[in-house]
């Protein structure tokens, strides 16, 4: 049965939902702005009045950052789950996001994030840290021959270690306490147009190549020897895709902090809707990740207004029950 028309319809619905959520998110905040005024302000472009400044300088960059970051995290989660044949893998669970946050905190501690060199320093520090974690995970995946439990335990242990080290740096570097704390819990509060431009260009650069590997990702969901015998160069594919997703994840971590479980939740939800084939799953995860992260951030902004919660708290509360469910169901799979 060809479901492609149903899938097209669902995708359009998802896109409409995302656009509607973007517009609604722009109306909500410490100062509520009417929908008609938001639409008018968006059409008129940036101006000097307060409403325009709230929308164009504060809310719009924040909304766009959460949309792009969510898309990156969801697609990265989708890729990690296939690369390691592990339904519980995502940038957060495997310790790759923590690696990025650790890279930033260590750079902050040694004073490497000063004004010279500009905004790029933070993503570079995050990439070095995230790449370190990704390399460890890759080495372990090759050694453990696809043992899912070993990989997850390693990710959990790595998260513990990096969290402990980050706490240590917070104590050693109290002047940076607030910003390090922010990275460790996730927030879009510091979004700016400059950051939107960087995160969007990195997202385009890193996520588009994944489209060339959707067949390989499908085949990798079988077993390693089958994938190899069908002609997939497993190590090459793993290295290339891990590099691109780690780059995208690290730029997300550097601007938005560690946002857990988006990469875990979204591909699972989308797989229930469109099935496991990555060609479709890619675009659904992209839009689904954007939608869920934007919704989470909007909730985080409103739930304790005029103050706000770190977005990581919302995504973790929503995502961890799914993680428990997946752990308990990991044995209920067909095999021969």
């Amino acid at each position: 049965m060809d479901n492609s028309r149903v899938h097209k319809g669902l995708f359009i619905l998802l896109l409409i939902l995302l656009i509607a959520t973007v517009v609604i998110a722009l109306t909500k905040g410490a100062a509520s702005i009417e929908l008609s005024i938001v639409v008018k302000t968006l059409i008129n472009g940036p101006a000097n009045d307060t409403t325009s400044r709230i929308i164009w300088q504060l809310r719009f960059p924040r909304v766009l950052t959460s949309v792009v970051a969510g898309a990156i995290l969801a697609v990265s989660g989708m890729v990690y789950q296939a690369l390691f044949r592990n339904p519980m893998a995502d940038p957060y669970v495997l310790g790759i996001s923590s690696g990025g946050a650790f890279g930033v905190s260590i750079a902050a501690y040694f004073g490497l994030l000063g004004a010279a060199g500009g905004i790029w320093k933070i993503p570079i520090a995050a990439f070095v840290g995230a790449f370190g974690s990704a390399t460890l995970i890759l080495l372990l995946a090759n050694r453990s021959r696809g043992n899912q439990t070993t990989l997850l335990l390693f990710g959990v242990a790595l998260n513990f270690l990096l969290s402990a080290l980050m706490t240590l740096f917070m104590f050693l570097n109290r002047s940076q306490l607030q910003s390090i704390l922010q990275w460790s819990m996730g927030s879009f509060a510091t979004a700016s147009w400059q950051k939107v431009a960087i995160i969007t260009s990195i997202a385009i650069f890193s996520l588009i190549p994944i489209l060339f590997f959707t067949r390989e990702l499908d085949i990798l969901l079988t077993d390693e020897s089958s994938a190899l015998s069908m002609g997939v160069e497993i190590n090459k594919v793993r290295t290339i895709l891990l590099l691109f997703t780690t780059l995208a994840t690290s730029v997300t971590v550097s601007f938005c902090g560690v946002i857990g479980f988006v990469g875990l939740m979204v591909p699972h939800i989308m797989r229930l809707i469109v099935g496991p084939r990555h060609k479709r799953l890619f675009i659904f995860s992209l839009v689904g990740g954007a939608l869920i992260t934007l919704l989470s951030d909007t909730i985080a902004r409103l739930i304790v207004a005029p103050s706000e919660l770190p977005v990581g708290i919302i995504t973790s509360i929503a995502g961890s029950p799914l993680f428990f469910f997946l752990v308990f169901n990991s044995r209920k799979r067909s095999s021969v």
Partner: protein
Amino acid sequence: MSESIITIKNLVHSYHLKKLFDNLSLQLPKHTFISIVGPNGSGKTTLLRHLIRSLPTEKDKIFLMDQDISFYTQKELARNLSYVPQQSKLEYDFTVYEVVAMGRYPYQKPLNLPSTEDHKIVNESLKAMKIEHLKDQNGTQLSGGEFQRMLIARALAQDSPLILLDEPVSHLDVHNQKEILNLLRNLVDSNKTTVITVLHDLNAVSAFSDLVVMMDKGKIVAEGKVSEVLTAQKIEEIYKVKVRVENNNERPTILPIWN
């Protein structure tokens, strides 16, 4: 002997500093049904894993149709050799058609849609394995026999002259064992394919094989026609079990004596 499809020359394989294969050599002819037998741990799966290059192998050790397998690209190798693993899992809801269509991967370019030829070969493979009626079914919901047919159909879709199988019928009932081995036998008889399979059931080996390779502790202890290899003396020596062998037209029946 006809032209060889696989030639192994002095293959060495060590595991935890212990040599499993010490200069193992073997030559296997084209268009035959070859069974590899031997007790657990004798090196049968390791041998197959060398053939699919999932284990590192030195140059000039294994030749596929007279060419060193280390010179094949991964896709070239896949076009010449397909593999059905001993244990396979399907953890995601791919349809049977989607799983079998994965076998066309070595012929496809990134982003290109599957060609008419791809669809034709996938449908033929489903038909050959008698599972065309299951093509839209979720692959995770198949019975053991159907699942195994799906994996063999995927190997057929690779359209390779050689199919390697690792214990393809071990967990199946006698009816499904017979059906699947018959289908493999027909592939060989059609003169297009060579089948090399690891099997445990010596009576199945006897009924379906042209050639038998018997392994023990990493060595090839016997190779040749069924009646030459499956003798009471060799089986008792290797398996340490008393057997009675009844010879029926070159295809002996092996009866283990349990007491």
